[in-house]
């Protein structure tokens, strides 16, 4: 057992000044990396954003701190570090709008809450309407959002041009007919979200155990008793499975099947350029979205590949299609060099909405199926999952996202509402 110090110092301008006096040699590790204990009140599999947020709200909202978060690779090394960091809540269906809006509102004060700068930047987000069908769809979303209490508006092509001077609003194939605008949408630093939650969890006394793979789930009388891992057997009263791409594999160990399929989703960034676009733009008809990072890189994403894949690398022609679409929308990026490209494995459900649910195994809970839209949901997902794990029953945010909705035909059909990956 290596007992490591847990983070105890508060980050502040005064701490910075104080540490400067000792050549910044006094900073602690942001989180401890202990060996697993024999047993916990709750174990969460997966130390990505959703898993860490679940642990954090278990401690903060429900006072459960005897918690371990188990991670196969390294913290935040999966989809949490592989997305395009977009945050929005302009969803059509009520349950989606509720949980994504909860997440977005938690993001607003997350830096203060965690005492860790997650660089949330509510810079505004546009979803372009490029066909009459899409315009009608977004007008419907604007009305739905009004009822749901999500602040969005429909704006004219001229207003789009005002907000995004580099955009081409009268393109030959798909001219811009307007946009669904969420002024409070934006981006955040994805790694910092995972790191901030991890630091706060560690400070509460939770154990974050990296490079520890789950090999099996044990149960007695239909109730979970523990997990077999590469670092030995760990007993637990409650188990939360929050592993995105490998949800099906871990569910298999727990003895049930999930309605999810794993596919690759890619993103890429360009070389850094001078600031040219201070909003997030999503063009769903031609299928590409883009924002500019603080470093100046254009951060670009598109659609998923069409076939099952666990390799974290996707097909080149999807990148080509995404860029073709974006060059049409933003002609000035045509000679930009692309710097890096990466892929993540996303778990897609039949209705493209997540699962936050009890499972056929007692005291085993599942949070998965975020598909292509998980990053924006991290705080809300953690909030809802923590409530489910603490009380054993879903709260108002999670209750519609049960895994049995597919059998009951109660879909939260964002695949139709969003028209694309979301």
């Amino acid at each position, binding site marked *: 057992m290596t007992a490591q110090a847990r983070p105890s110092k508060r980050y502040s301008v005064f701490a910075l000044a104080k540490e400067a006096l000792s050549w910044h040699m006094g900073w602690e590790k942001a989180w401890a990396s202990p060996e697993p204990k024999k047993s916990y009140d709750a174990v969460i599999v997966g130390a990505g954003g959703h898993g860490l947020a679940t642990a954090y709200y278990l401690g903060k909202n429900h006072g459960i701190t005897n918690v371990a978060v188990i991670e196969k690779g390294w913290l935040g090394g999966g989809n949490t570090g592989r997305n395009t960091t977009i945050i929005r809540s302009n969803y059509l269906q009520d349950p989606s709008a509720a949980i994504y809006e909860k997440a977005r509102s938690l993001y607003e004060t997350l830096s203060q809450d965690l005492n860790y700068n997650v660089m949330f930047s509510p810079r505004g987000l546009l979803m372009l309407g490029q066909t009459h069908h899409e315009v009608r769809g977004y007008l419907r979303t604007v009305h739905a959002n009004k009822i749901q209490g999500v602040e969005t508006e429909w704006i004219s092509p001229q207003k789009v041009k005002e907000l995004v001077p580099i955009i081409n609003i009268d393109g030959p194939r798909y001219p811009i007919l307007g946009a669904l605008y969420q002024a409070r949408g934006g981006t955040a630093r994805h790694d910092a979200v995972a790191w901030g939650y991890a630091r706060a969890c560690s400070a509460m006394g939770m154990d974050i155990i990296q490079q520890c793979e789950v090999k099996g789930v044990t149960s007695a009388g239909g109730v979970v008793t523990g997990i077999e891992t590469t670092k030995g057997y760990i007993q637990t009263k409650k188990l939360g499975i929050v592993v995105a791409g*490998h949800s*099906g594999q871990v569910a298999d160990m727990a003895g049930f*099947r*999930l309605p999810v399929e794993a596919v690759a989703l890619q993103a890429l960034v360009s070389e850094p350029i001078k600031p040219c676009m201070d909003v997030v733009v999503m063009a769903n008809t031609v299928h590409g979205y883009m924002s500019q990072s603080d470093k100046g890189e254009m951060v670009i994403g598109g659609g998923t590949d069409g076939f099952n894949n666990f*390799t974290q690398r996707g097909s080149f022609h999807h990148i080509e299609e995404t860029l073709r679409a974006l060059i049409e929308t933003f002609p000035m990026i045509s000679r930009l060099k692309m710097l890096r490209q990466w892929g993540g494995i996303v778990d897609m459900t*039949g209705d493209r909405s997540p699962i936050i649910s009890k499972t056929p195994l007692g005291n085993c809970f599942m949070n998965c199926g975020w598909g292509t839209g998980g990053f924006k949901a991290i705080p809300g997902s953690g909030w809802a999952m923590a409530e489910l794990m603490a009380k054993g029953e879903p709260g108002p945010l999670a209750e519609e996202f049960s895994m049995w909705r597919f*059998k009951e035909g109660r879909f939260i059909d964002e695949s139709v509402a969003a028209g694309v990956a979301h």
Partner: protein
Amino acid sequence: MLILECPYCGVKAEETELSPGGEAHLKRFGPGSTDEEFEAYMFARKNPKGVHFERWRHAYGCGKWFLAARCTATLEVFGTYPAQVSAPPQALQDKIKAKRPDWKGFQ
């Protein structure tokens, strides 16, 4: 980039010429089936990390549906075969078994 050989026209087609169609050999359930059967047919996919049998259409070629055996963990393609069968050909299953000894076999 995936390259699959169309079993009908014999063309070694790369991915842009094909459209993926999801898991193959699904047993269809309709009116008269139980809720569980219907749900499984509609939504429960095997989603294995490893050997996967799947449907593809030679969209920009002969236009026909065919089936392929592929590893989802490495993207290795084991082989393709015509769609008018209810199980993968034995020769292909043997070939996969030789390459992936711990494969549990076609279920």
